[in-house]
């Protein structure tokens, strides 16, 4: 043996790898009390019985994070595009229908109404229609947000 004791690095290697470390380590450990005790201490320090309890967060991390997740961009976009397409189709269809009715029966329906009264009536009708439409859209968006957050909470409980 060319030295008195094994180095810390060699002792750690012996403690972790046991039989797979160089044979001279084994020979030395068998004959040297100090190194054997040091190696045993290393083994004991990292044995399963000395393993501390794993730390745990003292709050519900899953729930807290899930409540803060943003609505996925792609889905929100897809939904808003759908709403615009449906809205535009309804407006175009309604416009075409009104135009057809107006063209085919304007003499019968509006024969005695002045153009000024007719214009005001149509403008008022369209304004009311637009205000109602915006209100419905806002309510729908709000309800969808509430629904989405409730779904997220349910999902986090279920998983």
């Amino acid at each position: 043996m060319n030295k008195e004791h094994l180095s810390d690095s060699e002792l750690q290697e012996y403690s972790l790898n046991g039989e797979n470390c160089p044979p001279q380590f084994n020979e030395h450990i068998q004959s040297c009390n100090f190194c054997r005790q040091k190696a045993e201490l290393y083994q004991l320090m990292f044995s399963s019985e000395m393993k501390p309890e794993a730390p745990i967060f003292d709050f519900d991390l899953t729930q807290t994070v899930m409540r803060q997740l943003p609505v996925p961009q792609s889905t929100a976009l897809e939904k808003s595009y759908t709403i615009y397409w449906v809205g535009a189709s309804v407006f175009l269809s309604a416009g075409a229908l009104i135009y057809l009715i107006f063209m085919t029966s304007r003499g019968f329906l509006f024969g005695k109404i002045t153009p000024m009264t007719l214009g005001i009536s149509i403008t008022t009708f369209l304004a009311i229609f637009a205000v109602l439409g915006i209100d419905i859209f806002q309510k729908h968006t709000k309800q969808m947000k509430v629904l989405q957050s409730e779904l997220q909470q349910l999902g986090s409980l279920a998983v």
Partner: protein
Amino acid sequence: MEEKDLINRILRGESALFAAIIKQTQGLVAQIVFKLVKNPEDRKDLAQDIYLKAYKNLSTFQFQSKLSTWIGQIAYNTCLAYLDKKKLVLPDGHDSAHENEETLLEYLSNKTLSSTDNETEQLLFRAELAELIQAALDTLPPMYRLLITLYHYEELSYDEMSAITNLPVGTVKNYLFRARKALKNRLLKNYSNEIL
């Protein structure tokens, strides 16, 4: 569910499934956050921040490592940024061996291995020793605490630890060796204070 399927479904809009990822990985994240950050309030903020970052960047995950390793990496970088912000540098340990190392080892060896002591006494001694190890671990520099925890308690490989800490494998091994040595020296110091 496969990790890849889970991630693809979350990316397609099923964000509720992200809860499964949190449940799977929060053990590792807790180990990293608890070992690097002492303040409980800051730990809470950091843990949330880590998962919000993971969710935001989920589309950039390349499946080159385990998802837990990737989230561990986010956890480590987030804690490191916090430590920098608070001007808390990672100190290097300069632990020397105890002057009475030989006597202490002899005493410890007798206590832990002696068959003449009764069993209850042995159990009590080992429980006390476990507490001393924990106390010694808590006094180590954050990096050492973390590496010992990841390797010995979370049983991660050197490669996984290298990915999380963004350190070369050789550096991880070197730090881990120094960490074990520092822990052993501090344990002996604490132990000598206990018995004297």
